[in-house]
């Protein structure tokens, strides 16, 4: 059953993408660690860290594509799941600091000592174990998505309403995490990490390993996501996106379908956050900012939604652009990003990958020229009654 599921997930594009990711996971760290610095093929450590970060963004965009592209749920709060995963990992990293913090307290992280706390809050228990933190990375975002989605989908909150309340959700979390008495380091968040699984987090080897882990995780998630969308379940999802009431009247439990997808997607976002935090060395409430979540939407839109590969490409392209732009003309980045939002929605609604594959498909169709029927120009799916 599972094998059938996985086999089905492999079409040519996905195979290529996974192969590329796995090759990156091997060659980039190898070139960084093994080749001498003056070799033209050497990848410098800062680039490894930078692209490692992009890969976690790509995973976040992939997660969003699953709910937005295939199920029509435009979540403006996916940054929240990302940040929660990040905080779970951050809490593990904080506890790994041990007595090496500024105040030298073996149990309490620095900020708690600073706030005069006497003992560890209950929700910090267990985070000294990696397996527990790794579990929480998926459980916490998954649980939030479950509770939120259970309420929202059951009462059929749809479309823009859903988008707005997901935004409110991440905004509420933003405000909450800013508070010192929440016990997550308030304004400053969690930082000054020392090591992960016993390895120095700053070391080149650790960075290379984190890069590889990000690439492999992205490949795995791509496999799972592809399996989901190519199954009958995935077809139901697209049905929900295009004609929700038709799906209901066919006897499917739309709310269960949406909930499952939302939770899976939130878990992926959580994993992305967990991989992101050790690579950038900090997690703070800013990650919950509604603006961040909307930016994820634009990565997905640029690459092409409902294509799985597109969001990955979009995330890397937009963030690469951001890095270059903010380096060269910092004050123009927001103009560029704003223009990108407008341009993509107006001129490239299917995104890069969607437009290209649409072009290829229409060429093939044209060559076939089998059916004499004219192809309707507007293939926009119509909403159900």
């Amino acid at each position: 059953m599972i094998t059938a599921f996985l086999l089905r997930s492999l079409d040519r594009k996905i195979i290529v993408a996974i192969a590329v990711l796995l090759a990156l996971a091997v060659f980039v760290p190898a070139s960084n660690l093994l080749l001498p610095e003056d070799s033209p093929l050497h990848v410098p450590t800062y680039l490894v860290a930078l692209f490692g970060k992009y890969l976690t963004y790509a995973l976040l965009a992939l997660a969003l594509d699953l709910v937005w592209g295939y199920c029509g749920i435009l979540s403006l709060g996916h940054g929240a799941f990302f940040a929660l995963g990040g905080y779970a990992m951050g809490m593990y990293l904080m506890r790994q600091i041990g007595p090496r913090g500024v105040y030298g307290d073996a149990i309490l992280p620095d900020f708690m000592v600073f706030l005069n706390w006497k003992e560890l809050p209950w929700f910090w228990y267990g985070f000294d174990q990696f397996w527990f933190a790794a579990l929480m990375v998926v459980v916490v975002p998954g649980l939030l998505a479950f509770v939120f989605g259970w309420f929202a989908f059951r009462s059929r909150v749809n479309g823009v309403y859903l988008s707005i309340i997901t935004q409110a959700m991440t905004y509420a979390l933003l405000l909450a995490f800013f508070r010192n008495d929440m016990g997550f380091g308030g304004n400053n968040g969690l930082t000054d990490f020392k090591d992960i699984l016993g390895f120095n987090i700053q070391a080149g080897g650790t960075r290379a390993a984190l890069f590889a882990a990000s690439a492999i995780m992205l490949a795995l998630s791509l496999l799972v996501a592809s399996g989901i969308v190519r199954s009958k379940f995935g077809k139901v999802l697209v049905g929900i996106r295009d004609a929700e009431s038709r799906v209901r009247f066919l006897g499917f439990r739309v709310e269960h379908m949406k909930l499952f997808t939302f939770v899976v997607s939130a878990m992926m976002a959580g994993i992305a956050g967990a991989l992101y935090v050790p690579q950038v060395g900090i997690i703070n409430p800013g990650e919950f900012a509604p603006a961040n979540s909307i930016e994820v939407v634009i990565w997905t839109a640029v690459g092409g939604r409902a294509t799985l590969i597109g969001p990955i490409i979009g995330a890397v392209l937009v963030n690469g652009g951001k890095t270059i732009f903010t380096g060269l003309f910092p004050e123009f980045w927001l103009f560029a990003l704003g223009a990108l939002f407008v341009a993509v929605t107006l001129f490239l609604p299917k995104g890069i990958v969607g437009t290209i594959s649409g072009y290829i498909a229409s060429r093939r169709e044209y060559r076939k020229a089998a059916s004499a029927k004219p192809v309707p120009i507007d293939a926009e799916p119509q909403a159900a009654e």
Partner: protein
Amino acid sequence: MFYRLIFAAFRIFFVCLSLALSLLATKAFAADDLKAMVNALGTASFAQAEELVNNLGKSGDPNVVPALEALSEGDLFVRKSDGQVFLTKRAGSKLELIDPLTGASAGEEAKSALSKVKVNNSLRRAIRAAIGGLTLMSPDRTVRLQAAQSILKAPSADSLEAVETALAAEQDAEIKGVLESARAVALLSSDRSLDDKKAAIEVIKERGGRDSISILMTAANSADEALRPDIDAAITSIENSLVFADAAQNVWYGLSLGSVLLLAAIGLAITFGVMGIINMAHGEMVMLGAYSTFVVQNIIRTSYPELFDWSLAIALPVAILVTGAVGLVIERGVIRFLYGRPLETLLATWGISLILQQAVRTIFGPTNQEVGNPSWMSGAFELGGLTITWNRMWIIVFSLSVFFALLFLLKRSAFGLQMRAVTQNRRMASSMGIRTPWVDAFTFALGSSIAGMAGVALSQIDNVSPNLGQSYIIDSFMVVVFGGVGNLWGTLVGAFTLGIVNKFLEPYAGAVLGKILVLVLIILFIQKRPRGLFALKGRAVEA
């Protein structure tokens, strides 16, 4: 009118007459005594000086106040040659001498010929009580009121007699009220009888307010055991009445916040509620409105300072034009290509909001800009124990006027009719000869101008910075969604409900947690009623 004038003239005449008489009376018997007493200060010991100050206070002559004040400040000097006491003023290397009672100049003298009259803290206390007593008798109403209030703030048994004297003479009801409270407060720390004190507690209880509680608390520390139950009872009773006052205060703050939310949300109710456009750049329209105010004020400040009180009235049409024009451009340039695709509209307008923010940041800089309050917007007034600031008051008035003006426009004008027609059935409207694209464009421009108007108002109470809009956008969406889309009344009720709920939660949960709670409540509420408080029901909505 005429009679009133005559009446007023008579009143002035009588007041002057009685004043002159009273002054004459004190002058007649005490002018020389006073002079002697003030001169005696020059050589007296501290104990004697205190006695003298008390006597001066009892004289009831306000003319001794400058001398007493100077003594307290260490500005009173005695001439070594004849023991005469003077106030002094610097005049070159010498000091100008001023008669302590009449204020007339009395020549100059070298510093070495004078010596300072010494003062210590216990003497200062006596001086304060004496001045308090004296100013209580001042002919000037405001001086008396201030004196009474300062005694009330720093009560002491010493001032009790002065207060009682003043009370007997006082005619003005307001001052009398303050004096009565002051007497009661002073009495508590005096050595009067228990019954008097019980009566005093009663008076303080009647007065109410938070400071009465603290007065009673301090009194409880030093008071007789027998008084405890009375004091405790009084405190509880005041606290109970304070609960109502607090509730009223919260309602007021809530209304104030609600009016701000209403202003920010009305425009959104038009674009989102009527046209179904998710305009994420709405907050930036508010910001542009605020910046228009800033620019207008700047021009006025530099070129026509006398017009400053009119700056908001001038800024309002400017803001409407600026934001309306920007809205028109956005609708024609972007949004019209995206009708029927609400999620894409959301993304595109978000992009526009980023561009507008950055543009303003580039032009005006990232820091807060100074926008002043015209005189009629600053200050506050009291209403039944509530302090109501004028700017909040005007914003409530303004938001309601905008609301009703808009309601009128939609329901009664030809444009409103066309707008509603297009919303309900675009094709039919267009075949009736309505230019639907222009109706769309102007509706959007209207929504944007209302945001601009909100910006003018918000510039008065919030920081004018490029991020101004960001802080309102989520709240205003919440208002519209909560109130029910497509229903202006829903927006009104939604805004004020959210404002008041927010302010009622704040004292218990703190500002941030209160806000979080409200967000969570709205999220839960939307689950229950996905289409808001005042939703339209039926088949048509879902089609």
